């Protein structure tokens, strides 16, 4: 069942590529249908979700490379299931949004379907090698999206993205091999590694493995100082590519922390948690400040991603710090981190698609070129406003739920850091309000003198993301009920 969800998109992509004479229209509809079916299947997974004794549902474990203790091991728990659902939803949104794409539609659709398989596969992997396979393929897929369909300096941005994240992934692989060699018997299985805690009491080796894993995932997340690939990649990518990159691919890094690093290296994580917290806080503040300085709408959103991912890092780091003090606090911190991943995926996905709509009409992202769009394009203004408010963490949206939990959970363990991170919210609020004011209010100004409102495909793709962010903000229980037990399980391993 889980495997069908994962491999359905790539199978459709293969069919699309293999049939030579398919019109662009048919390709678009096939693409939308495939992602919609996949989303329905994920909904089915969610409804039937009953985690077993291992904590995972839909567990499948097949032999793959037994000589190195690696297998095809997949399953979902409360941490991965929301991300799987987010992935399926966001890819459907991108498919709908891309209904107006006219350049090489067939390859574009195939590439996105391939990426969907890769992203889903990553979130359900319970084996390090399987995880790494998907991790690396996501880089390849996104490289082609940026290089093939980006604008302006796309080739350079794509190359930078590839080299940077590929280096990160190889460092991550070193960490995986380190875990594998430390385990006895040698294994790449995440569940087995979690049970073994292989590096307990192995001072320097454990620290080295943590550094390798941490750097590898930090590049993908990205946290300061490994974020420099992100702005050019985002700016040059097509809108749907940016949405997937920020909405899903960035989560791979933070998800790796929760899924692999914390459970497999609990003692080392606790020992160095203060470093993680500091990195998180620096990302929060630095990302917000740099975003404040941007004149380019898309770059600004890109930098707020650094800021928002910083909250996640802060949460998971603080869970290591407060591990000894209060169980409830660290549960809150980890739950908040997972909620933030989902929330950020929805909101940033929406914002990047809106940025794409802006670029389509004006041909530029520079905010000072625009003004007073609210009068001409009320629906665009409403969606942008809502997404921006959601992104700055206004109560009633998912971001608030997530950030509230992270801050409440972290305050006990890391009071100073958390207080500093509060500043991030303030700065984000300022920069979003300023951007809204400049672009939406005042006298009308737009390159070319005209600004059409959002089209039906755009509205159909962006609205559900914003609405869902609001739904989670108002009725978060259905999501938290799934996340919390899994977060408790992670913390139980993290121990005290």
């Amino acid at each position, binding site marked *: 069942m889980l495997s069908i969800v994962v491999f359905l998109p790539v199978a459709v992509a293969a069919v699309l*590529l293999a049939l030579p004479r398919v019109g662009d229209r048919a390709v678009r509809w096939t693409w939308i249908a495939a992602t919609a079916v996949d989303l329905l299947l994920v909904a089915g997974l969610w409804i039937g979700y009953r985690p077993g004794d291992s904590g995972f549902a839909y567990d499948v474990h097949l*032999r*793959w*490379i*037994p*000589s*190195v203790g*690696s297998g095809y091991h997949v399953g979902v728990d409360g941490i991965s299931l929301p991300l799987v659902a987010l992935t399926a939803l966001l890819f459907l949104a991108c498919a709908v949004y891309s209904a107006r794409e006219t350049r090489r539609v067939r*390859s574009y659709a195939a590439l996105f379907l391939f990426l969907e398989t890769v992203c889903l596969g990553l979130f359900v992997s319970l084996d390090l*090698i399987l995880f*790494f*396979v998907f991790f*690396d*393929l996501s880089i*390849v897929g996104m*490289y*082609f999206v940026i*290089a*093939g369909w980006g604008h302006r300096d796309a*080739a350079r941005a794509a*190359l930078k993205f*590839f*080299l940077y994240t*590929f*280096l990160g992934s*190889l*460092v991550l*692989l*070193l960490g995986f*091999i*380190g875990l*594998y*060699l430390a385990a006895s018997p040698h294994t790449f299985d995440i569940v087995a590694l979690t049970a073994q805690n292989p590096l307990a009491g192995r001072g320097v080796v454990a620290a080295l493995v943590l550094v390798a894993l941490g750097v590898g995932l930090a590049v993908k997340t990205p946290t300061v100082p490994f974020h420099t690939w992100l702005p050019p990649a985002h700016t040059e990518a097509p809108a749907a590519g940016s949405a997937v990159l920020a909405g899903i691919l960035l989560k791979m890094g933070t998800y790796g922390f929760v899924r692999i690093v914390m459970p497999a290296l609990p003692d080392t994580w606790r020992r160095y948690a203060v470093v993680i917290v500091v990195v998180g806080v620096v990302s929060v503040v630095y990302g917000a400040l740099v975003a404040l300085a941007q004149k380019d709408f898309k770059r600004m959103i890109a930098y707020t991603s650094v800021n928002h991912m910083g909250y996640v890092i802060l949460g998971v780091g603080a869970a290591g710090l407060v591990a000894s003090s209060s169980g409830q606090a660290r549960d809150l911190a980890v739950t908040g981190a997972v909620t933030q991943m989902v929330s950020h995926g929805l909101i940033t996905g929406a914002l990047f698609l809106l940025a794409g709509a802006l670029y389509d009409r004006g041909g530029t992202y520079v905010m000072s070129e625009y003004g007073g769009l609210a009068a001409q394009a009320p629906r665009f203004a409403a969606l942008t406003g809502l997404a921006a408010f959601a992104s700055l963490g206004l109560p009633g949206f998912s971001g608030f739920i997530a950030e509230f939990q992270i801050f409440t959970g972290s305050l006990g363990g890391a009071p100073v850091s958390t207080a500093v991170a509060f500043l991030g919210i303030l700065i984000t609020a300022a920069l979003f309000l300023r951007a809204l004011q400049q672009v939406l209010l005042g006298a009308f100004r737009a390159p070319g003198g005209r600004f059409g409102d959002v089209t039906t495909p755009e509205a159909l793709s962006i609205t559900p993301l914003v609405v869902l962010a609001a739904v989670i903000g108002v009725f978060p229980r259905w999501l938290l009920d799934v996340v919390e037990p899994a977060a408790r399980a992670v913390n139980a391993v993290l121990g005290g």
Partner: protein
Amino acid sequence: MDENPSALLPEILLAVAAIVGLLLGSYLPRHRQWLVRLLAAAACGAGVVATVVSENMAVFGGTYVVDVATNATRVVVMVSVVLVLCLADPIRGMARESEFVVLLVLAALGSVLLAGSNDLMLLAAAYLLASIPLYALAGFAKDAPGTEASLKFYLMGALLGVTTLAGVVVVFGLGGATEYTALSTGLATAPRLAVAVGVVAVLAGLLFKAGAVPAHFWVPDVTEGSGAVAAAFITTVPKIGAVVAIHRLITVASARLDWALVVAVIAAATMTLGNLAAFFQDNVRRLLAYSTISQVGYLLVGVAAAGHSDLALPAVLLYLGGYAVTNLGAFAVVCALPAATVLADFRGLLRRRPWLAVSLVVVLLGLVGTPPTVVFAGKLTVFTAALDAGLLWLVVVAVVNTVASVFYYLRWIGPAVRGEPADMPEPTRWAVHTAYGAAAGSVLLGVLTGPLLAALGA
């Protein structure tokens, strides 16, 4: 003393195919010379079958061993020969077609013998058999670049071959034997420095065959100067036997010295130099030439771990197989478009020939080591073995190199998937299908890593 010739059935098949092919080629009319190719392919097929059913043993007084490493080399070499024969459409109907095939088969035989040699004398003989046909192949077209390549290749090969012979003499003098088992006991009491000098001299020829630093200078010139088909063969098949032979030799010589560091330094130098030199190559064949040099570096990372990790030998063999398929796939794309010589000639390939472009992307990313291709599995296991052997620094060097290598492979992939199509003549049909097959094989073997590793004794 076991002198059972049936243990050598695959080698005998190759030798017989070469001789019969030569005779057949003298009598067949020119348009029927393809029969010689068929014969060679059939011999390879039969050889693979014979390999699969063969038993592990040492034969002929222990001078030749049939074990997992030899068997793996046999299979990889013979499959590679078949792939190269598929590429060899341009030589069809050409004068000396059968000679071309016979030279291929003889060189392949030499490569297999290198891998199985358990005796210095046999190793030296295998070295010559694996080299001399290639000198002729490099200059086969009788044009100026080919002749120059051939001459350079020959001079370097002769020099390093003599060095190897000198090394054989020194090691024989020190150890009192040429057969490896006797040698390892003989060397245990010999002076360390002298052993080091002797073994390094023997290694010289093998490094030349493998195209590793510092004996790599011939690789780019031969790859560019000789025909694309010959280049595909020369950069793939001899390496296989040579790397296995290096592994065997240093395992013997480790009785007196730990060779891990020597091999590790050679590995680091090889991959770094290969990658740096590949950076700004515009000619695709020169780019692939330097890429093959860097790949030998990664292979030697696994060899350096030999004796310190159980995974080392299976990892190296897996990598060799993966490298052979993937590298031949890249050359198949080059053979498919004979007119395209520089990177810019591949501009817009995706629009013009989508599946050929996809194959190119798969094999090039495969050479980078992107999952799920088999080279990724090879790299993963090689790195694991090296870390297990405590060679963290070498693995870090290899990782940095891998990232650097992405840059030049992307310089080729980029134009191929983007941009407006350049004018492109109709590609060679057989080579196109070989490229598809190699690309698919590279992914399929990656998925089948588990059974493969099990077969290789991990």
